């Protein structure tokens, strides 16, 4: 038994690694990238004085390391052949405004600094066609932020690159050293770059030091975002769990012990009806009818605090919070009764019909003792299984309710991060919830074993 759980705990680490790898890969597979939101948003449209120019996109991507390969950077070894291929395609007439053009230049861009001396020699010495030369100059310009504009003549651009790399004389006559030596890398150096110049290893190394990075959207550390949002979501998830369990389990027991009575039927139907009302619809109705529009003005409709919250007394603050919480909390909770109480009822019914319960009854134990002492304990097993889901849910929040009631919780944060392609936040949230899920499963198995002695974890022998 103990061995089994030690094994399980050790297994968490490779699983976690696998999960993070797959997640990272999937979210990178999704099209779209965070720079899109720097161009405006769908609600207000695009600003015509913010342009989509590629240079802007690339600069933004570079600041956040999004221009690197995802897993491992082998481009630092293959850039020469990549470049040869690119030159071929460019000479074959790939249009500069097409996506294909960017795609063929992508590999050499990903080789990054390692490719710089090579590109410089290509520009200065190789006999490139004009479009290929332009392409090479463009890569250097964007990546190394050279002060080259497309309007300069090619010869001037070449001169600039030469001065920049090998040194020259500045405008006011001072001698300037070139940057050439910065781009000499030893074999070990290069080997290191396979990892340091790729997105996933970078992220993993950071994670190992518990650094989630900064959000692309607002440059704030990710853990600050999480620190702000978790308590908000916890208020709702925990309260809602407690209410749901407090109400659903007794109902489930009642339904099971009073099977097929009118009371059972009525509670069944009511719970199902509650369950089947889409929560976004109910949330809107709640706002319309209880938020003080044309109907009742009972509750505020947005946020968690009134303006002037900070000046209130301690009690006033708590009352204010409660006032804001009630409406979303009801919407949050009403649908969860039925599933819980159904599970409770189902497993209770099953247990009641087991032989040992009959035996207990036959022994002449009172119905109460049979129900609450013997049956209840065993019928709690499925509920325990559900507890495993509870842990990650506690921090996951609810996208729909949080966005309708303008509550800055985890659901909204994660959803916005997904829409924005804010990779550091997405990875942080999914890693956290992965850890909690794995932990939850482990705990539930442990409880399972403790509650039901029939369960063993030894292999089939």
């Amino acid at each position: 038994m103990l061995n089994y759980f030690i094994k399980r705990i050790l297994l968490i680490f490779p699983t976690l690694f696998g999960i993070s790898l797959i997640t990272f890969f999937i979210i990178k597979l999704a099209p779209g990238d965070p720079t899109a939101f720097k161009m405006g948003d769908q609600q207000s449209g695009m600003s015509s004085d913010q342009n989509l120019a590629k240079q802007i996109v690339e600069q933004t991507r570079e600041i956040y390391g999004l221009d690197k390969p995802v897993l491992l950077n082998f481009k630092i070894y293959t850039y020469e052949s990549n470049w040869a291929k690119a030159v071929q395609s460019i000479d074959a007439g790939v249009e500069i405004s097409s996506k294909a053009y960017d795609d063929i230049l992508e590999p050499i861009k990903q080789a990054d600094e390692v490719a710089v001396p090579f590109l410089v020699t290509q520009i200065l010495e190789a006999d490139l066609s004009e479009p290929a030369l332009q392409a090479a100059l463009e890569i250097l310009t964007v990546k190394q932020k050279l002060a080259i504009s497309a309007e300069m003549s090619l010869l001037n651009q070449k001169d600039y690159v030469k001065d920049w790399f090998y040194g020259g004389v500045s405008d006011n006559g001072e001698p300037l050293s070139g940057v050439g030596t910065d781009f000499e890398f030893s074999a070990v150096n290069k080997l290191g770059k396979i990892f340091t110049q790729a997105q996933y290893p970078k992220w993993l190394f950071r994670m190992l030091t518990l650094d989630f990075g900064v959000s692309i959207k607002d440059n704030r550390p990710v853990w600050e975002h999480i620190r702000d949002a978790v308590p908000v979501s916890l208020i709702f998830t925990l309260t809602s769990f407690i209410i749901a369990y407090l109400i659903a389990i007794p109902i489930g027991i009642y339904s099971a012990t009073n099977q097929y009575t009118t009371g059972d039927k009525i509670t069944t139907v009511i719970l199902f009806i509650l369950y089947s009302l889409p929560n976004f619809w109910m949330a809107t109705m709640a706002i319309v009818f209880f938020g003080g529009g044309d109907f009742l003005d009972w509750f505020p409709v947005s946020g968690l605090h009134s303006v002037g919250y900070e000046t209130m007394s301690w009690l006033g603050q708590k009352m204010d919070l409660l006032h804001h919480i009630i409406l979303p909390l009801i919407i949050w909770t009403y649908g969860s009764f039925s599933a819980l109480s159904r599970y409770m009822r189902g497993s209770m019914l099953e247990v009641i019909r087991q032989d040992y319960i009959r035996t207990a009854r036959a022994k002449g134990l009172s119905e109460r003792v049979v129900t609450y002492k013997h049956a209840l304990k065993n019928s709690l097993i499925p509920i325990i299984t559900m507890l495993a889901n509870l842990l990650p849910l506690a921090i996951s929040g609810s996208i729909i309710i949080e966005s309708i009631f303008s509550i800055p919780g985890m659901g909204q944060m994660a959803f916005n991060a997904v829409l924005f392609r804010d990779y550091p936040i997405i990875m942080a949230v999914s890693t956290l919830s992965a850890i909690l899920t794995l932990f939850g499963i482990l705990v539930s198995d442990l409880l399972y074993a403790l509650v039901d002695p029939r369960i063993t974890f030894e292999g089939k022998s």
Partner: protein
Amino acid sequence: MKKSFIIQIILLVGAVIWTNIGAKNKEVMNDGFNANAGGIKVDLTGDIKIFDSSPTDKAVKKGGTLVVAWSAEPENLNYYTSTSANAKRFLDYIYETLISYDYADWSYSRPILAKKFEVSDDGKTYRFYLRDNITWHDGEPMTIDDVVFSMKALMNPFVDDAPLRAYYDKVIDAHAEGDSVFVISTSEYYFMNLEFLGGFAIMPKHIWDPKGYMDEFTIADLNDPRVTRERSEIRQFADDFNAHSQGRPVGFDAEPIIGSGPWRFDKWITGEYMSMVRNDSYWNKDEIYIPLMAEDGTNLDKIIIKTIQDPTAMLTALKSGEVDFLPRMRAIQYFEQTNTDDFLDQFQKVTYNVPAYSYIGWNNDKPYFQDKRVRQAMTMLVDRDSYNKYIGYDLGVPTIGPFYIFGKQYNHNVPRWPYDPIRAVELIEEAGWIDHDGDGIRDKDGVPFSFIFSVSAGSRGAKYLSLMMKEDLRKIGINVDIRQLEWSVYVENLRDRQFDVVMLLWIGGLETDPYQIWHSDNIGSRGSNYIGFRNDEADSLIKNARYEIDEVKRNAMYYRLQEIFHDEQPYTFMFYQRDPGAYTKRFNGVKWIPIRPGYNFASWWDNQSVSAMAPSN
């Protein structure tokens, strides 16, 4: 079992009878919904460029709090790195620029922080004379160093403000001359230079760069990768700047943002609200603050900007008094849900203009849209007026080109294409799109006339229009597929030019430069001309106009450009937007202006305010 089967049959037959009886009296018209919703329509045509929607006969009172609802929260409040329009809107009350719009003639020339400015004859060098009585909110005086520092921060290549910096790429030098003159040089004249060179927010150096990292560098240094690579201070400063706590002063006890404007930052509670209070020690309060807007500074004590994403919650909050002003509500709310006497007694409804227009962009490089006759036909196939009337509640102002209809660049002599499906079909057939293979879809050279209409997931108008087009074009043998995409994918597809048709909104200003969107230099991933519009005459007009100093000559070029657009129809230009909004009648001095966002709180005052005079600090 039998009984229930009979019940089902009865139900079914009943339904059939019910609906078929109904089919006979189907001429249920729903007209006149738009007739009178009890609101004021802000009209800025002619010389009227400021519109007052509240009674003006009362004496201005000081004090009061205004609560406004916005639908989205900015990601941060760093003036340079934030890309959200809401951040700029908020910060424009707190930070100030050297010069700004003159509300009398709408030129970009009203001195604010600069008491005057000079432009050299060749239009390349600008000299701004800074006032000497400016103080920051923390009491420190503003000096010329702050101005120079702000420019350097903006130009730092590691600061995450690439979209903004793109407008300063012609700046070659910026330095202080003596204690009060800021000199900035550009490599060439550009007609919108003043708006950019005088229009960046000045930030306090002692807060953002107390260690003076940026002191020793010049603009030329920042433009030179040899310097920026070697000097780690530049990167260090940028990292600090990007993540500075002033950019995100969140919480009940955060350090406030230090600006110089008439409003002080008060609080930002993430996801809930941002607020600002009047700056009673405003350096400029004894002088005329904004001519024609608020003669003696600002009136309100406090402005709170609440974030409410859900439109229903927003309107409910207005009705329940949680919010005083909704700048943008949904058209259906404006026209159908706010017509009770109660509401109209308590609130003033307004529709006002914003310089943003919607359009349908045809990818000019796709086989079906290469021929301008087809594009003209497509324009004539879109029933724009019905769309505007029924879907848009007549809120749109029809436009024929990309320039603001209330600006000087707009050519009012260019006619609008009519809605004329018959003529359109003729043009399409003239262009060779005929159903050769008899499958019901027109084709040409083996390419069927079947395209994808990309719709951004959040855009209701585009969704409805695409549905209308799908249904209409099906009848004339053109197949439309609708693809709904979320924003980041949508933009990526635009950038990669992987689309057939899009419907979008361009937000502009009073004056705009068509270069980014219309010049063939900017086709595809290199700029915003993602529909691939190519026209030699247009190219040369756009280029020449940029550097034309004489305004009349320049606008003549733009007039000609609009004639070309009319003929080429690269877009189907739809409508300039009017936003519907409402505020409680408690407020007076509510003025509407032609620039974004269409309103300015400086002039608002609370007629129920109890404090007749400003409290002195």
